[in-house]
């Protein structure tokens, strides 16, 4: 019994945004994607707190507020901290991995090179999360 997820994608790379949208449509998933180009934009969306996303997909390397800084702010908020956040990045820097899990992330996935592999990966992640019981805003 799959749920329709509201996904907040925080990604500065336009093509990456396109990759996710294309993947969702290719898979014909009913999930709704909210786009934020960087950390500030994402925070302003979240702090409205009218409709909170079910999960957040977060890129780490971003201009201005980077992924880890954003994550810290998020985890300090009494409400927002409960939103499962999955890191979606090209960097497998061990230091970053440790830091993210320390602050608190629900997952850490590396973007594969090939789009086919990417689709496969996103499918599994979204399938997994749509099976989960989530906090509804």
């Amino acid at each position: 019994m799959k749920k329709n997820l509201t996904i907040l994608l925080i990604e500065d790379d336009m093509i990456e945004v396109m990759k996710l949208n294309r993947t969702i449509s290719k898979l014909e998933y009913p999930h709704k994607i909210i786009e934020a180009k960087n950390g500030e934009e994402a925070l302003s969306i979240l702090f409205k707190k009218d409709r909170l996303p079910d999960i957040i997909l977060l890129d780490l390397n971003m201009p201005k507020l980077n992924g880890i800084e954003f994550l810290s702010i998020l985890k300090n908020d009494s409400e927002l901290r409960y939103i499962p956040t999955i890191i979606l990045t090209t960097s497998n820097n061990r230091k970053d991995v440790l830091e993210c899990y320390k602050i608190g992330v629900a997952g850490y996935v590396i973007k594969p090179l090939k789009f086919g592999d990417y689709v496969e990966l996103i499918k599994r992640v979204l399938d997994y999360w749509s099976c989960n019981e989530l906090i509804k805003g």
Partner: protein
Amino acid sequence: MENSKIEILERALERQKAARKAAEKILEEKSRELYMVSEELKVSNEKLEESLSQKTSELEGVFLNIIDAYIVMDIMGNVLSMNDAAVEMLGYDASKESFNLTAIVKEEYLEYTEKAFKDLYEKGFYKNYQAIIKTKNNEEKLVQVNSSIIYNKEGKPIAAQGILRDITQENIYKELIEQQKKQLDIIVDHSPIGISLSRKDDIGLLMANNSLTKMFGFSQEEFKKIKLQDLTFDDDKEISEIKRSELYNDEIESYSLNKRYIKKSGEIVWAKTSVTGVKDTNNKVKFHVTTIEDITKEKRALEKLKDSENRLSTLIVHLQSGILLEDNHKNIQVVNKKFNSLFGQCENDNSFQGSKVSYFHEKVKHLFKYPEQFLDINSLVMQKNDEVYKQELELLDGRVIERNGIPIVQDGVYKGYLWSYYDITIGKRYEESLEAQKEKYSSIIANMNLGLLEVDNNDVILLANQSFCDISGYSLNELVGKKAADLILTDDSKVVFDSKMNRRERGISDSYEVKATSKSGETRNWLISGAPNYNVNGKLIGSIGIHLDITEQKNLEKQKEELLNSLEKQNEQLNEYAHIVSHDLKSPLRSISALLSWTKEDFAEKIGEDSLINLNMMEDKVEKMDKLIGDILNYSSIEDQGMNNNDVNVNEVVERIIDTIFIPNHIKVVIKNKLPIIKADSTRLQQLFQNLISNAINYIDKEKGLVEVDFEDAKDFYIFSIKDNGVGIPKEYHEKIFKIFNTLGDYEKSTGIGLSIVKKVVELYKGEIWLESKVGVGTTFFFSIKK
């Protein structure tokens, strides 16, 4: 009745009186007759002899010595006749006047005299009558009278005759002798010396005094049956016997012996025994007087003295210094073994003994380095007899002899001179070498580049060397007497120093660093090596510290530390940078890859075959570039730091690789022997094996490929090997292939980094990598990992 009785008694008395008168008359007549007879005797000696026959033999003696006073008296004591000697003695002359003997006897002798007369009358003689008489000249004389009765032919006593001797003088002597004897007895009895009198053949002593009884424990009664010979100690019997017989044979008059006796208690007593013979009138020894003096104590003391003398002389003989004793005439009395050996004589040689000291001097002078000097100083000493103290004499053979001499003076009188000689060669050499050593070390201390400081128990400076002055900036004068810590150390360092001082008191030496302030106010770093300092008695008297100024080293160390820190930081930044760069490079690749795949997807029908091939080639290049970026990142992140070295089961690591990497169907990867568990970082190990196994697979050109993973347990290393039956590597490339970006052959996905990563990892584990290869046959890579 009473009166009649009295009358009867009176009448009886009267009768008796008459009877006595009649008897007296008869007696008078009778004595007159006797007188007549004696008159006749006088006339004829022969007649007298006849009439008195051989009455008594003693009378005969009396008459023979008729020069004595002689009287004849009647039995009443009236002197009838007397000779001239009697007249002279008594002053009375019976031929001129009549007198009665009893009348001239002193009153107190009257009774005795009466009794004597009675005895005389009854027994016929009376011997040794002694009484004091008064002569006519009123002189008192003690006379002795021996008298006898003269009987007539009928055997009736008619008169008495007596010989008188004036014994007045004799008696005085006798009394004197008696008195003297008493005094003598007292002396003998109270003498501390035992005295005995014995007769030759008696079984006991005639006399033994108190001291003797006390000395031997026998009573005087017991001594009557014991002779001193009987008590003589067995060993001394023979000589005692000889002496006694000499005495009795009149060969000697007396003798004296120190001999032993056995007391009643069984103890032995040493006694000085003096025996003197007592001769009789025939000049023959009849008695002997023995005086015995207990000398046990003296004897013991003497023995002790002898013992100690013996010990002393043994000591001298064996003394480790040569001893020479001179008497007051410069004669050698004693030399000991050591003395002999010092001067090259046989140890028990006696040639010096008894000779003149000068003989010794002459005899040994050639042994000395300066013989004349030796003789000179000797003659000087001999003149003055002064003390000689620690005089050193050098011998030709290199020995050095030290001698001390002291005159022996007893009660202010010079008795001799005592020399002691020592061989001090070793001590001397030792001293010299000690001196040399001391000089050497002093020079080292003075010239060494280390500051040396000696302090007492209160940290007051006693000594500092030049280097210490140099590094502290103070002069020696400014240092000595000051408290070291107060003068030099910074406050922080003083705390450290105090704790070290505590350790020093417990005898612990150690090294520590302090900050010191030099005279110019500069703060310097010093390394101090401190050790407790003890005196010869092992008592802690302070400490000695060696100071090294390590400010420069310290600064260098600090610089090095800073450098290391900045290096680490830079490394970290570099690592970070590599990641960012790799991300930044990878992101566009991902976009390109996505766009390419979408183009292929979206325009699959519109693009031709050739274009599709081109797009595919583009995808391949993008992929290779992505791998290149990944490999560079891997290579750059292989460092010592961040390695987690745990027990890793290599077998599992390799099996996992075989499971995960792509292996074409015609190739088999096998583990020949079970791989060990080693201490390593599993990620690095995986990189290592994965690269080598991938390489092996990639270069296999045979129909059936085989990759064998094996290992060998060498002594300090594990040697792993990965063997393939691939194309093989020509010899000239065996080294080149490990260099970064170098690739061999035509495997298009090769980045040229894989083997560089492998080599870097192996080197991290202090191992080596090498290979054996035959072109066309295959290659075996070996690498070792240190245990």
